Protein backbone atom coordinates (compact mmCIF):
# COMPACT_ATOMS: atom_id res chain seq x y z
CA UNK A 1 0.00 0.00 0.00
CA UNK A 2 1.21 3.58 -0.61
CA UNK A 3 2.45 5.72 2.26
CA UNK A 4 0.21 8.59 3.31
CA UNK A 5 2.60 11.04 1.70
CA UNK A 6 2.83 9.09 -1.53
CA UNK A 7 -0.95 8.87 -1.76
CA UNK A 8 -1.39 12.55 -0.92
CA UNK A 9 1.06 13.72 -3.54
CA UNK A 10 0.14 11.28 -6.29
CA UNK A 11 0.02 13.07 -9.64
CA UNK A 12 -3.09 12.29 -11.64
CA UNK A 13 -3.08 11.48 -15.32
CA UNK A 14 -6.57 12.90 -15.77
CA UNK A 15 -6.80 15.59 -18.43
CA UNK A 16 -9.94 17.72 -18.40
CA UNK A 17 -11.41 17.98 -21.91
CA UNK A 18 -11.50 21.51 -23.32
CA UNK A 19 -15.21 21.20 -24.07
CA UNK A 20 -16.08 19.60 -20.71
CA UNK A 21 -18.35 22.45 -19.57
CA UNK A 22 -19.96 22.71 -22.98
CA UNK A 23 -20.73 18.99 -22.96
CA UNK A 24 -22.46 19.14 -19.61
CA UNK A 25 -24.31 22.36 -20.50
CA UNK A 26 -25.68 20.38 -23.42
CA UNK A 27 -26.85 17.61 -21.09
CA UNK A 28 -28.44 20.21 -18.86
CA UNK A 29 -30.26 21.74 -21.81
CA UNK A 30 -31.60 18.33 -22.77
CA UNK A 31 -32.82 17.77 -19.21
CA UNK A 32 -34.49 21.17 -19.17
CA UNK A 33 -36.52 20.23 -22.20
CA UNK A 34 -38.01 17.16 -20.50
CA UNK A 35 -40.93 17.68 -18.10
CA UNK A 36 -40.37 16.07 -14.70
CA UNK A 37 -43.77 14.29 -14.72
CA UNK A 38 -43.33 13.32 -11.09
CA UNK A 39 -45.52 10.69 -9.46
CA UNK A 40 -45.53 10.40 -5.68
CA UNK A 41 -47.36 7.49 -4.05
CA UNK A 42 -47.30 6.75 -0.32
CA UNK A 43 -46.01 3.29 0.61
CA UNK A 44 -47.88 2.10 3.69
CA UNK A 45 -45.58 -0.92 4.10
CA UNK A 46 -42.47 1.22 4.53
CA UNK A 47 -44.06 4.16 6.37
CA UNK A 48 -43.87 4.26 10.16
CA UNK A 49 -45.28 6.24 13.06
CA UNK A 50 -42.66 8.92 12.52
CA UNK A 51 -41.88 8.83 8.80
CA UNK A 52 -43.94 8.78 5.64
CA UNK A 53 -42.27 6.94 2.77
CA UNK A 54 -43.26 7.52 -0.83
CA UNK A 55 -42.50 5.69 -4.07
CA UNK A 56 -41.39 8.43 -6.47
CA UNK A 57 -41.08 8.29 -10.25
CA UNK A 58 -39.89 11.01 -12.62
CA UNK A 59 -38.64 11.46 -16.18
CA UNK A 60 -34.98 12.01 -16.93
CA UNK A 61 -32.68 12.12 -19.95
CA UNK A 62 -33.98 10.22 -23.00
CA UNK A 63 -37.33 10.15 -21.14
CA UNK A 64 -36.13 7.25 -19.03
CA UNK A 65 -38.41 6.80 -16.03
CA UNK A 66 -36.45 6.99 -12.78
CA UNK A 67 -37.52 5.69 -9.37
CA UNK A 68 -36.72 6.94 -5.92
CA UNK A 69 -37.72 6.59 -2.31
CA UNK A 70 -38.84 9.82 -0.67
CA UNK A 71 -38.99 10.08 3.11
CA UNK A 72 -40.56 12.93 5.06
CA UNK A 73 -40.92 13.32 8.81
CA UNK A 74 -44.54 12.81 9.74
CA UNK A 75 -46.61 15.76 10.80
CA UNK A 76 -44.13 18.40 9.61
CA UNK A 77 -45.07 20.70 6.77
CA UNK A 78 -43.08 23.31 4.91
CA UNK A 79 -39.55 24.60 5.19
CA UNK A 80 -37.81 21.28 5.48
CA UNK A 81 -34.24 21.07 4.32
CA UNK A 82 -33.89 18.68 1.42
CA UNK A 83 -31.39 15.83 1.21
CA UNK A 84 -30.44 14.09 -2.00
CA UNK A 85 -29.10 10.59 -1.32
CA UNK A 86 -27.15 8.98 -4.13
CA UNK A 87 -26.35 5.26 -4.30
CA UNK A 88 -23.31 3.03 -4.56
CA UNK A 89 -22.43 0.94 -7.61
CA UNK A 90 -23.87 -2.46 -6.80
CA UNK A 91 -26.36 -1.98 -3.99
CA UNK A 92 -29.94 -0.86 -4.33
CA UNK A 93 -30.69 2.64 -3.04
CA UNK A 94 -31.59 2.58 0.65
CA UNK A 95 -34.83 3.87 2.04
CA UNK A 96 -34.19 7.34 3.46
CA UNK A 97 -36.05 6.84 6.73
CA UNK A 98 -33.12 7.77 8.94
CA UNK A 99 -32.60 11.12 7.18
CA UNK A 100 -36.33 11.83 7.47
CA UNK A 101 -36.05 11.13 11.19
CA UNK A 102 -33.20 13.64 11.34
CA UNK A 103 -35.65 16.25 9.99
CA UNK A 104 -35.02 16.26 6.25
CA UNK A 105 -37.18 15.67 3.21
CA UNK A 106 -34.93 13.03 1.74
CA UNK A 107 -34.89 11.53 -1.73
CA UNK A 108 -32.94 8.32 -2.36
CA UNK A 109 -32.48 8.04 -6.11
CA UNK A 110 -32.30 4.87 -8.23
CA UNK A 111 -30.56 6.02 -11.42
CA UNK A 112 -31.13 4.04 -14.62
CA UNK A 113 -30.08 0.41 -14.45
CA UNK A 114 -30.87 0.08 -10.75
CA UNK A 115 -33.64 -2.46 -10.17
CA UNK A 116 -36.53 -0.03 -9.92
CA UNK A 117 -35.32 2.00 -12.91
CA UNK A 118 -34.23 -0.72 -15.29
CA UNK A 119 -37.17 -1.29 -17.61
CA UNK A 120 -35.65 1.00 -20.30
CA UNK A 121 -31.95 0.57 -19.53
CA UNK A 122 -30.29 -2.41 -17.92
CA UNK A 123 -26.61 -3.00 -18.67
CA UNK A 124 -26.14 -5.12 -15.52
CA UNK A 125 -23.19 -5.62 -13.20
CA UNK A 126 -20.53 -6.03 -14.39
CA UNK A 127 -21.56 -3.92 -17.35
CA UNK A 128 -22.64 -0.43 -16.35
CA UNK A 129 -19.09 0.88 -16.04
CA UNK A 130 -18.27 0.04 -19.65
CA UNK A 131 -21.62 0.32 -21.37
CA UNK A 132 -21.17 2.25 -24.64
CA UNK A 133 -17.88 3.46 -23.26
CA UNK A 134 -16.33 4.61 -26.51
CA UNK A 135 -18.62 7.61 -27.04
CA UNK A 136 -19.30 10.28 -24.45
CA UNK A 137 -22.72 10.92 -25.98
CA UNK A 138 -23.86 7.36 -25.45
CA UNK A 139 -21.87 6.24 -22.41
CA UNK A 140 -24.24 4.87 -19.78
CA UNK A 141 -23.04 7.24 -17.11
CA UNK A 142 -24.26 10.26 -19.09
CA UNK A 143 -27.82 9.32 -18.30
CA UNK A 144 -26.90 7.91 -14.90
CA UNK A 145 -25.38 11.22 -13.75
CA UNK A 146 -28.33 13.11 -15.21
CA UNK A 147 -30.77 10.91 -13.29
CA UNK A 148 -29.06 11.73 -10.02
CA UNK A 149 -28.99 15.45 -10.73
CA UNK A 150 -32.62 15.23 -11.79
CA UNK A 151 -33.41 14.08 -8.27
CA UNK A 152 -32.53 17.57 -7.15
CA UNK A 153 -35.11 18.95 -9.56
CA UNK A 154 -37.66 16.70 -7.85
CA UNK A 155 -36.72 17.99 -4.39
CA UNK A 156 -36.90 21.59 -5.57
CA UNK A 157 -40.37 20.95 -6.97
CA UNK A 158 -41.73 20.02 -3.54
CA UNK A 159 -43.65 22.58 -1.48
CA UNK A 160 -42.32 21.17 1.78
CA UNK A 161 -38.68 21.64 0.74
CA UNK A 162 -36.85 24.89 1.41
CA UNK A 163 -34.92 25.37 -1.83
CA UNK A 164 -32.23 27.36 0.00
CA UNK A 165 -31.34 24.40 2.22
CA UNK A 166 -30.57 21.35 0.11
CA UNK A 167 -27.68 18.94 0.56
CA UNK A 168 -26.34 15.86 -1.15
CA UNK A 169 -24.50 12.84 0.18
CA UNK A 170 -23.42 9.33 -0.68
CA UNK A 171 -20.49 6.96 -0.56
CA UNK A 172 -18.44 5.18 -3.19
CA UNK A 173 -20.36 5.73 -6.43
CA UNK A 174 -22.58 7.88 -4.21
CA UNK A 175 -19.47 9.89 -3.35
CA UNK A 176 -18.88 10.48 -7.05
CA UNK A 177 -22.52 11.40 -7.65
CA UNK A 178 -22.30 13.80 -4.72
CA UNK A 179 -19.40 15.57 -6.42
CA UNK A 180 -21.19 15.60 -9.78
CA UNK A 181 -24.45 16.94 -8.35
CA UNK A 182 -22.70 19.59 -6.25
CA UNK A 183 -20.75 20.69 -9.34
CA UNK A 184 -23.56 20.69 -11.89
CA UNK A 185 -26.07 22.26 -9.48
CA UNK A 186 -23.74 24.51 -7.54
CA UNK A 187 -26.42 27.22 -7.38
CA UNK A 188 -28.74 24.94 -5.41
CA UNK A 189 -26.59 22.53 -3.40
CA UNK A 190 -25.66 24.20 -0.12
CA UNK A 191 -23.68 21.39 1.49
CA UNK A 192 -22.19 18.08 0.39
CA UNK A 193 -20.57 15.06 1.99
CA UNK A 194 -18.77 12.55 -0.23
CA UNK A 195 -17.50 9.22 1.10
CA UNK A 196 -14.77 7.17 -0.61
CA UNK A 197 -15.53 8.77 -3.96
CA UNK A 198 -15.45 6.32 -6.83
CA UNK A 199 -15.32 7.39 -10.52
CA UNK A 200 -12.57 9.88 -9.76
CA UNK A 201 -9.30 9.35 -11.59
CA UNK A 202 -10.44 6.52 -13.84
CA UNK A 203 -7.16 6.32 -15.76
CA UNK A 204 -5.19 6.28 -12.53
CA UNK A 205 -7.45 3.77 -10.80
CA UNK A 206 -7.20 1.13 -13.49
CA UNK A 207 -3.45 1.10 -12.93
CA UNK A 208 -3.56 1.38 -9.14
CA UNK A 209 -5.93 -1.49 -8.38
CA UNK A 210 -6.81 -4.88 -9.82
CA UNK A 211 -10.13 -5.19 -8.01
CA UNK A 212 -13.59 -4.86 -9.46
CA UNK A 213 -15.45 -2.70 -10.41
CA UNK A 214 -12.52 -0.73 -11.93
CA UNK A 215 -11.25 -4.02 -13.36
CA UNK A 216 -14.23 -3.89 -15.73
CA UNK A 217 -12.42 -1.15 -17.65
CA UNK A 218 -9.22 -3.16 -17.91
CA UNK A 219 -11.28 -6.14 -19.08
CA UNK A 220 -12.85 -3.95 -21.74
CA UNK A 221 -9.57 -2.53 -22.98
CA UNK A 222 -7.94 -5.96 -23.02
CA UNK A 223 -10.86 -7.28 -25.04
CA UNK A 224 -11.04 -4.22 -27.32
CA UNK A 225 -7.46 -2.90 -27.44
CA UNK A 226 -8.18 -0.79 -30.50
CA UNK A 227 -10.62 1.32 -28.51
CA UNK A 228 -8.26 2.32 -25.71
CA UNK A 229 -7.91 5.98 -26.78
CA UNK A 230 -11.66 6.39 -27.21
CA UNK A 231 -12.22 4.86 -23.78
CA UNK A 232 -9.77 7.19 -22.09
CA UNK A 233 -11.22 10.20 -23.95
CA UNK A 234 -14.76 9.31 -22.92
CA UNK A 235 -13.96 8.68 -19.28
CA UNK A 236 -12.48 12.17 -18.88
CA UNK A 237 -15.95 13.67 -19.39
CA UNK A 238 -17.24 11.63 -16.45
CA UNK A 239 -14.31 11.91 -14.09
CA UNK A 240 -15.08 13.40 -10.69
CA UNK A 241 -11.71 15.15 -10.76
CA UNK A 242 -12.93 17.20 -13.73
CA UNK A 243 -16.11 18.22 -11.90
CA UNK A 244 -14.42 19.05 -8.60
CA UNK A 245 -13.40 22.66 -9.25
CA UNK A 246 -17.02 23.63 -9.92
CA UNK A 247 -18.09 22.88 -6.36
CA UNK A 248 -18.67 26.04 -4.36
CA UNK A 249 -20.57 24.81 -1.29
CA UNK A 250 -19.12 23.53 1.98
CA UNK A 251 -18.04 19.92 1.48
CA UNK A 252 -16.53 17.15 3.57
CA UNK A 253 -14.85 14.07 2.15
CA UNK A 254 -13.85 10.87 3.94
CA UNK A 255 -11.49 8.21 2.66
CA UNK A 256 -9.96 4.99 3.95
CA UNK A 257 -6.20 4.74 3.74
CA UNK A 258 -6.40 1.03 2.86
CA UNK A 259 -9.26 1.25 0.39
CA UNK A 260 -9.16 -1.87 -1.77
CA UNK A 261 -11.86 -0.69 -4.19
CA UNK A 262 -11.28 3.03 -4.70
CA UNK A 263 -7.54 3.72 -4.59
CA UNK A 264 -6.65 6.05 -1.75
CA UNK A 265 -4.60 8.22 -4.10
CA UNK A 266 -7.71 9.19 -6.02
CA UNK A 267 -9.46 10.36 -2.85
CA UNK A 268 -6.69 12.84 -2.20
CA UNK A 269 -6.66 13.75 -5.87
CA UNK A 270 -10.30 14.73 -6.11
CA UNK A 271 -10.20 16.55 -2.78
CA UNK A 272 -7.21 18.60 -3.91
CA UNK A 273 -9.06 19.43 -7.13
CA UNK A 274 -11.90 21.10 -5.17
CA UNK A 275 -10.47 24.57 -5.69
CA UNK A 276 -13.78 26.41 -5.90
CA UNK A 277 -14.53 26.30 -2.17
CA UNK A 278 -12.49 27.22 0.88
CA UNK A 279 -14.96 25.47 3.12
CA UNK A 280 -13.82 21.90 2.67
CA UNK A 281 -12.37 19.24 4.92
CA UNK A 282 -10.83 15.84 4.30
CA UNK A 283 -11.17 13.07 6.90
CA UNK A 284 -8.67 10.26 6.44
CA UNK A 285 -9.15 6.98 8.29
CA UNK A 286 -6.24 4.65 8.86
CA UNK A 287 -6.80 0.88 8.99
CA UNK A 288 -9.93 1.40 6.91
CA UNK A 289 -10.87 -0.09 3.57
CA UNK A 290 -13.71 1.07 1.36
CA UNK A 291 -15.94 1.71 4.36
CA UNK A 292 -13.71 4.76 4.89
CA UNK A 293 -14.45 5.12 8.58
CA UNK A 294 -18.20 4.89 8.13
CA UNK A 295 -18.92 3.71 11.66
CA UNK A 296 -17.14 6.72 13.09
CA UNK A 297 -17.87 9.17 10.31
CA UNK A 298 -21.66 8.85 10.09
CA UNK A 299 -22.13 11.15 13.08
CA UNK A 300 -19.72 13.68 11.60
CA UNK A 301 -21.79 13.77 8.40
CA UNK A 302 -25.00 14.16 10.37
CA UNK A 303 -23.56 17.01 12.46
CA UNK A 304 -22.11 18.70 9.37
CA UNK A 305 -25.47 18.85 7.65
CA UNK A 306 -27.23 19.89 10.85
CA UNK A 307 -24.89 22.87 11.05
CA UNK A 308 -25.19 23.75 7.35
CA UNK A 309 -28.90 23.09 6.76
CA UNK A 310 -30.53 23.48 10.18
CA UNK A 311 -33.17 20.75 10.24
CA UNK A 312 -35.87 21.05 12.84
CA UNK A 313 -35.57 18.27 15.35
CA UNK A 314 -38.47 17.37 17.58
Amino acid at each position, binding site marked *: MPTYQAAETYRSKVVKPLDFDEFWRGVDDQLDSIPLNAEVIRDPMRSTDDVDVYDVRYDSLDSVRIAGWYGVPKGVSGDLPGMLLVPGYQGEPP*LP*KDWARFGYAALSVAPRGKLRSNSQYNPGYPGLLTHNLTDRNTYGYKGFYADAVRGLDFLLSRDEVDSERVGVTGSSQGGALTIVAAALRSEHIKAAAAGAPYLCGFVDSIELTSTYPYQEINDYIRHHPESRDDVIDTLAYFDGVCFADKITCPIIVNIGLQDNIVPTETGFMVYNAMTGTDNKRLYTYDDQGHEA*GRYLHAKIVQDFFAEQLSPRTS
Partner: protein
Amino acid sequence: MGEGRYKSVTDTRPTDFDQYWTAVLDELANTPSAPEVERVPIRDTDYATQYSVRLTSIGPYRIFAYVSVPKGDGPFPALYFAPGYGSVVANTQQGMPNGLRRDHIVFVLAARGQRNSDKPYAASFPGLLTDGIDDPSAYRYRGIVADAVRGLGYLASRSDVDANRVAVLGSDMPLVIAGLSTAASHVVDSPAIFYKAVKRAAGTQAYPLEELNDYIRLFPERRDAVERTMSYFDTRWFASSVKAKTLVLAGAKGEPLSRDGLQPLLDNIGDNASVYEAGEDHSTYKEGVYKLSWLAKEFRLGAPVLPEHWQ
Protein backbone atom coordinates in the same frame (compact mmCIF):
# COMPACT_ATOMS: atom_id res chain seq x y z
CA MET B 1 -36.98 -0.40 20.35
CA GLY B 2 -35.94 -3.16 22.68
CA GLU B 3 -35.81 -6.86 22.08
CA GLY B 4 -38.84 -7.26 24.30
CA ARG B 5 -41.13 -5.85 21.63
CA TYR B 6 -41.79 -9.33 20.25
CA LYS B 7 -42.28 -12.33 22.47
CA SER B 8 -39.92 -14.57 20.55
CA VAL B 9 -40.37 -18.26 19.89
CA THR B 10 -37.32 -18.34 17.65
CA ASP B 11 -35.05 -19.77 20.32
CA THR B 12 -36.65 -23.11 19.61
CA ARG B 13 -35.57 -25.46 16.84
CA PRO B 14 -38.69 -26.52 14.92
CA THR B 15 -39.53 -30.12 15.77
CA ASP B 16 -39.86 -30.92 12.06
CA PHE B 17 -36.71 -29.01 11.06
CA ASP B 18 -35.00 -32.11 9.65
CA GLN B 19 -38.09 -33.22 7.75
CA TYR B 20 -38.50 -29.77 6.24
CA TRP B 21 -34.95 -29.73 4.86
CA THR B 22 -34.92 -33.39 3.90
CA ALA B 23 -37.91 -32.67 1.68
CA VAL B 24 -36.04 -29.79 0.04
CA LEU B 25 -32.94 -31.92 -0.54
CA ASP B 26 -35.08 -34.76 -1.91
CA GLU B 27 -36.72 -32.36 -4.32
CA LEU B 28 -33.29 -31.13 -5.36
CA ALA B 29 -32.02 -34.67 -5.84
CA ASN B 30 -34.95 -35.35 -8.14
CA THR B 31 -34.17 -32.27 -10.23
CA PRO B 32 -31.38 -32.77 -12.77
CA SER B 33 -28.94 -29.86 -12.61
CA ALA B 34 -28.41 -29.85 -16.41
CA PRO B 35 -25.36 -27.56 -16.43
CA GLU B 36 -24.67 -25.35 -19.43
CA VAL B 37 -21.21 -23.81 -19.47
CA GLU B 38 -20.14 -20.94 -21.74
CA ARG B 39 -16.98 -18.88 -22.06
CA VAL B 40 -17.08 -15.22 -21.05
CA PRO B 41 -13.99 -14.05 -22.92
CA ILE B 42 -14.14 -10.44 -21.75
CA ARG B 43 -13.41 -11.58 -18.17
CA ASP B 44 -10.48 -13.83 -19.15
CA THR B 45 -7.01 -12.96 -17.93
CA ASP B 46 -3.56 -14.29 -18.76
CA TYR B 47 -3.93 -16.71 -15.88
CA ALA B 48 -7.62 -17.60 -15.71
CA THR B 49 -10.56 -18.39 -17.96
CA GLN B 50 -14.03 -17.13 -17.14
CA TYR B 51 -17.19 -19.12 -17.74
CA SER B 52 -20.86 -18.66 -17.05
CA VAL B 53 -22.88 -21.62 -15.82
CA ARG B 54 -26.60 -22.27 -15.86
CA LEU B 55 -28.08 -24.89 -13.56
CA THR B 56 -31.54 -26.10 -12.71
CA SER B 57 -32.70 -25.95 -9.11
CA ILE B 58 -36.00 -26.89 -7.51
CA GLY B 59 -39.14 -25.57 -9.07
CA PRO B 60 -37.68 -26.23 -11.62
CA TYR B 61 -35.88 -22.90 -11.77
CA ARG B 62 -32.87 -22.01 -13.92
CA ILE B 63 -30.12 -20.21 -12.02
CA PHE B 64 -26.91 -18.50 -13.11
CA ALA B 65 -23.34 -18.62 -11.87
CA TYR B 66 -19.86 -17.55 -12.84
CA VAL B 67 -16.89 -19.86 -12.57
CA SER B 68 -13.30 -18.79 -13.15
CA VAL B 69 -10.73 -21.54 -13.71
CA PRO B 70 -6.96 -21.05 -13.44
CA LYS B 71 -4.91 -21.92 -16.49
CA GLY B 72 -2.80 -25.01 -16.02
CA ASP B 73 -3.40 -28.38 -14.51
CA GLY B 74 -5.70 -28.84 -11.55
CA PRO B 75 -7.12 -29.84 -9.29
CA PHE B 76 -7.40 -26.38 -7.74
CA PRO B 77 -8.72 -25.15 -4.44
CA ALA B 78 -12.12 -23.51 -4.84
CA LEU B 79 -13.75 -20.42 -3.39
CA TYR B 80 -17.52 -20.32 -3.53
CA PHE B 81 -19.03 -16.89 -2.90
CA ALA B 82 -22.50 -17.93 -1.81
CA PRO B 83 -25.54 -15.75 -2.52
CA GLY B 84 -26.33 -13.05 -0.02
CA TYR B 85 -29.04 -10.43 0.26
CA GLY B 86 -28.73 -8.08 -2.72
CA SER B 87 -29.58 -7.86 -6.38
CA VAL B 88 -26.09 -7.85 -7.89
CA VAL B 89 -23.88 -10.91 -8.13
CA ALA B 90 -20.74 -10.01 -10.06
CA ASN B 91 -18.16 -12.39 -11.47
CA THR B 92 -15.78 -11.64 -8.63
CA GLN B 93 -16.74 -10.17 -5.32
CA GLN B 94 -16.17 -6.43 -5.28
CA GLY B 95 -12.85 -5.59 -3.67
CA MET B 96 -11.39 -9.08 -3.85
CA PRO B 97 -8.03 -9.21 -5.65
CA ASN B 98 -8.37 -10.49 -9.17
CA GLY B 99 -5.18 -12.45 -8.51
CA LEU B 100 -7.18 -14.93 -6.43
CA ARG B 101 -8.23 -16.38 -9.77
CA ARG B 102 -4.64 -17.40 -10.48
CA ASP B 103 -4.64 -20.21 -7.89
CA HIS B 104 -8.32 -20.78 -7.15
CA ILE B 105 -11.43 -21.78 -8.96
CA VAL B 106 -13.74 -18.90 -8.09
CA PHE B 107 -17.45 -19.69 -8.19
CA VAL B 108 -20.15 -17.06 -7.67
CA LEU B 109 -23.82 -17.95 -7.75
CA ALA B 110 -26.90 -15.81 -8.28
CA ALA B 111 -29.86 -17.38 -6.52
CA ARG B 112 -33.37 -17.00 -7.88
CA GLY B 113 -34.47 -13.39 -7.87
CA GLN B 114 -30.97 -11.96 -8.15
CA ARG B 115 -29.70 -10.46 -11.39
CA ASN B 116 -29.07 -13.05 -14.11
CA SER B 117 -31.34 -15.46 -12.20
CA ASP B 118 -34.25 -13.06 -12.31
CA LYS B 119 -36.50 -14.69 -14.87
CA PRO B 120 -39.25 -15.43 -14.17
CA TYR B 121 -38.80 -14.15 -10.62
CA ALA B 122 -37.14 -10.79 -9.94
CA ALA B 123 -36.69 -10.06 -6.25
CA SER B 124 -37.33 -6.65 -4.72
CA PHE B 125 -34.96 -4.99 -2.28
CA PRO B 126 -36.55 -4.39 0.16
CA GLY B 127 -39.15 -7.11 -0.20
CA LEU B 128 -37.24 -10.36 -0.67
CA LEU B 129 -36.87 -11.09 3.03
CA THR B 130 -40.63 -11.27 3.57
CA ASP B 131 -41.66 -12.79 0.24
CA GLY B 132 -43.92 -15.73 1.12
CA ILE B 133 -42.94 -15.50 4.78
CA ASP B 134 -46.36 -16.54 6.10
CA ASP B 135 -45.73 -20.17 5.15
CA PRO B 136 -42.42 -22.05 5.45
CA SER B 137 -43.24 -24.12 2.38
CA ALA B 138 -43.82 -20.98 0.29
CA TYR B 139 -41.05 -18.80 1.70
CA ARG B 140 -38.79 -17.58 -1.09
CA TYR B 141 -35.64 -18.49 0.81
CA ARG B 142 -36.60 -22.16 0.68
CA GLY B 143 -35.78 -22.09 -3.02
CA ILE B 144 -32.80 -19.78 -2.52
CA VAL B 145 -31.19 -22.23 -0.10
CA ALA B 146 -31.82 -25.02 -2.59
CA ASP B 147 -30.13 -22.91 -5.27
CA ALA B 148 -27.10 -22.37 -3.06
CA VAL B 149 -26.86 -26.10 -2.30
CA ARG B 150 -27.17 -26.84 -6.01
CA GLY B 151 -24.24 -24.53 -6.66
CA LEU B 152 -22.06 -26.32 -4.13
CA GLY B 153 -23.01 -29.67 -5.62
CA TYR B 154 -22.06 -28.47 -9.09
CA LEU B 155 -18.74 -27.06 -7.90
CA ALA B 156 -17.84 -30.24 -6.02
CA SER B 157 -18.70 -32.33 -9.07
CA ARG B 158 -16.04 -30.65 -11.22
CA SER B 159 -12.99 -32.80 -11.81
CA ASP B 160 -10.70 -29.74 -11.61
CA VAL B 161 -11.78 -28.95 -8.04
CA ASP B 162 -9.73 -30.23 -5.10
CA ALA B 163 -12.45 -31.69 -2.89
CA ASN B 164 -10.35 -31.17 0.22
CA ARG B 165 -10.08 -27.44 -0.40
CA VAL B 166 -13.55 -26.07 -1.09
CA ALA B 167 -14.40 -22.95 0.90
CA VAL B 168 -17.83 -21.34 1.01
CA LEU B 169 -17.80 -17.64 1.84
CA GLY B 170 -20.63 -15.23 2.47
CA SER B 171 -23.06 -13.92 5.04
CA ASP B 172 -25.46 -16.54 6.43
CA MET B 173 -25.59 -18.96 3.52
CA PRO B 174 -22.22 -20.71 4.08
CA LEU B 175 -23.37 -22.16 7.40
CA VAL B 176 -26.76 -23.05 5.98
CA ILE B 177 -25.46 -25.00 3.01
CA ALA B 178 -22.55 -26.53 4.95
CA GLY B 179 -25.19 -27.80 7.35
CA LEU B 180 -27.07 -29.41 4.48
CA SER B 181 -24.13 -30.70 2.45
CA THR B 182 -20.75 -32.21 3.28
CA ALA B 183 -19.11 -30.89 0.10
CA ALA B 184 -17.54 -27.84 1.75
CA SER B 185 -14.22 -28.35 3.50
CA HIS B 186 -14.09 -24.79 4.83
CA VAL B 187 -16.59 -22.09 5.69
CA VAL B 188 -16.15 -18.35 6.17
CA ASP B 189 -19.40 -16.97 7.54
CA SER B 190 -20.39 -13.41 8.44
CA PRO B 191 -23.70 -13.75 10.29
CA ALA B 192 -26.10 -11.11 9.05
CA ILE B 193 -29.81 -11.89 8.85
CA PHE B 194 -30.70 -15.47 9.76
CA TYR B 195 -29.57 -15.54 13.35
CA LYS B 196 -32.30 -14.74 15.88
CA ALA B 197 -33.75 -12.62 13.09
CA VAL B 198 -37.11 -11.60 14.49
CA LYS B 199 -35.68 -10.94 17.91
CA ARG B 200 -32.86 -8.81 16.52
CA ALA B 201 -35.22 -6.97 14.18
CA ALA B 202 -37.02 -5.65 17.21
CA GLY B 203 -33.83 -3.87 18.20
CA THR B 204 -33.05 -2.15 14.90
CA GLN B 205 -34.50 0.12 12.23
CA ALA B 206 -31.89 -0.92 9.67
CA TYR B 207 -32.67 -2.91 6.55
CA PRO B 208 -32.86 -5.74 5.71
CA LEU B 209 -34.10 -6.74 9.20
CA GLU B 210 -36.41 -3.71 9.14
CA GLU B 211 -38.35 -5.60 6.46
CA LEU B 212 -39.59 -7.90 9.22
CA ASN B 213 -40.67 -4.91 11.31
CA ASP B 214 -42.43 -3.35 8.30
CA TYR B 215 -44.26 -6.60 7.62
CA ILE B 216 -45.32 -7.22 11.20
CA ARG B 217 -46.42 -3.60 11.59
CA LEU B 218 -48.67 -3.91 8.55
CA PHE B 219 -49.86 -7.45 9.35
CA PRO B 220 -49.62 -7.80 13.13
CA GLU B 221 -51.82 -10.90 13.09
CA ARG B 222 -49.16 -12.72 11.06
CA ARG B 223 -46.37 -12.28 13.58
CA ASP B 224 -46.43 -15.86 14.82
CA ALA B 225 -46.32 -17.16 11.26
CA VAL B 226 -43.29 -14.95 10.53
CA GLU B 227 -41.49 -16.24 13.58
CA ARG B 228 -42.33 -19.81 12.72
CA THR B 229 -41.05 -19.50 9.15
CA MET B 230 -37.85 -17.76 10.18
CA SER B 231 -37.12 -20.50 12.70
CA TYR B 232 -36.53 -22.96 9.82
CA PHE B 233 -33.77 -20.69 8.51
CA ASP B 234 -31.95 -19.84 11.72
CA THR B 235 -28.25 -20.64 11.30
CA ARG B 236 -28.13 -22.06 14.84
CA TRP B 237 -30.07 -25.08 13.74
CA PHE B 238 -27.77 -25.79 10.80
CA ALA B 239 -24.58 -25.23 12.77
CA SER B 240 -24.53 -28.51 14.64
CA SER B 241 -24.40 -30.38 11.32
CA VAL B 242 -21.47 -28.39 9.95
CA LYS B 243 -18.37 -30.56 9.60
CA ALA B 244 -16.29 -28.01 7.67
CA LYS B 245 -13.57 -26.02 9.36
CA THR B 246 -15.28 -22.72 10.02
CA LEU B 247 -14.22 -19.11 10.48
CA VAL B 248 -16.97 -16.91 11.86
CA LEU B 249 -16.57 -13.18 11.31
CA ALA B 250 -18.24 -11.57 14.31
CA GLY B 251 -19.23 -7.98 15.03
CA ALA B 252 -17.64 -5.80 17.67
CA LYS B 253 -17.93 -6.31 21.42
CA GLY B 254 -21.30 -5.29 22.79
CA GLU B 255 -23.10 -5.71 19.46
CA PRO B 256 -25.78 -8.34 18.81
CA LEU B 257 -23.47 -10.23 16.45
CA SER B 258 -20.37 -10.02 18.64
CA ARG B 259 -18.56 -13.16 19.72
CA ASP B 260 -20.63 -13.17 22.92
CA GLY B 261 -23.84 -12.55 21.02
CA LEU B 262 -23.06 -15.43 18.67
CA GLN B 263 -22.12 -17.86 21.43
CA PRO B 264 -25.15 -20.13 20.91
CA LEU B 265 -24.21 -20.43 17.25
CA LEU B 266 -20.54 -21.04 18.04
CA ASP B 267 -21.46 -23.66 20.64
CA ASN B 268 -23.47 -25.52 18.03
CA ILE B 269 -20.60 -25.49 15.53
CA GLY B 270 -18.31 -26.77 18.24
CA ASP B 271 -14.58 -27.34 17.87
CA ASN B 272 -14.62 -26.62 14.15
CA ALA B 273 -15.20 -22.92 14.72
CA SER B 274 -12.72 -20.12 15.09
CA VAL B 275 -13.74 -16.51 15.41
CA TYR B 276 -12.53 -13.15 14.19
CA GLU B 277 -14.10 -10.33 16.19
CA ALA B 278 -14.29 -6.89 14.61
CA GLY B 279 -13.09 -3.80 16.37
CA GLU B 280 -15.29 -0.77 16.94
CA ASP B 281 -14.22 0.61 13.57
CA HIS B 282 -15.47 -2.49 11.69
CA SER B 283 -12.40 -2.38 9.47
CA THR B 284 -12.97 -4.38 6.31
CA TYR B 285 -9.24 -4.08 5.74
CA LYS B 286 -8.29 -5.86 8.95
CA GLU B 287 -11.06 -8.40 8.57
CA GLY B 288 -10.21 -8.99 4.92
CA VAL B 289 -6.52 -9.57 5.58
CA TYR B 290 -7.40 -11.96 8.40
CA LYS B 291 -9.87 -13.85 6.24
CA LEU B 292 -7.58 -14.21 3.21
CA SER B 293 -4.64 -15.18 5.43
CA TRP B 294 -6.76 -17.82 7.18
CA LEU B 295 -7.80 -19.30 3.85
CA ALA B 296 -4.26 -19.27 2.44
CA LYS B 297 -3.02 -21.05 5.53
CA GLU B 298 -5.83 -23.59 5.48
CA PHE B 299 -5.26 -24.24 1.79
CA ARG B 300 -1.47 -24.41 2.31
CA LEU B 301 -0.86 -21.76 -0.34
CA GLY B 302 1.77 -19.68 1.43
CA ALA B 303 1.35 -15.90 1.54
CA PRO B 304 -2.20 -14.70 0.91
CA VAL B 305 -3.13 -12.86 -2.28
CA LEU B 306 -4.16 -9.38 -1.17
CA PRO B 307 -5.47 -6.30 -3.01
CA GLU B 308 -2.81 -3.71 -3.77
CA HIS B 309 -3.88 -1.35 -0.99
CA TRP B 310 -3.74 -4.09 1.64
CA GLN B 311 -0.16 -5.12 0.87
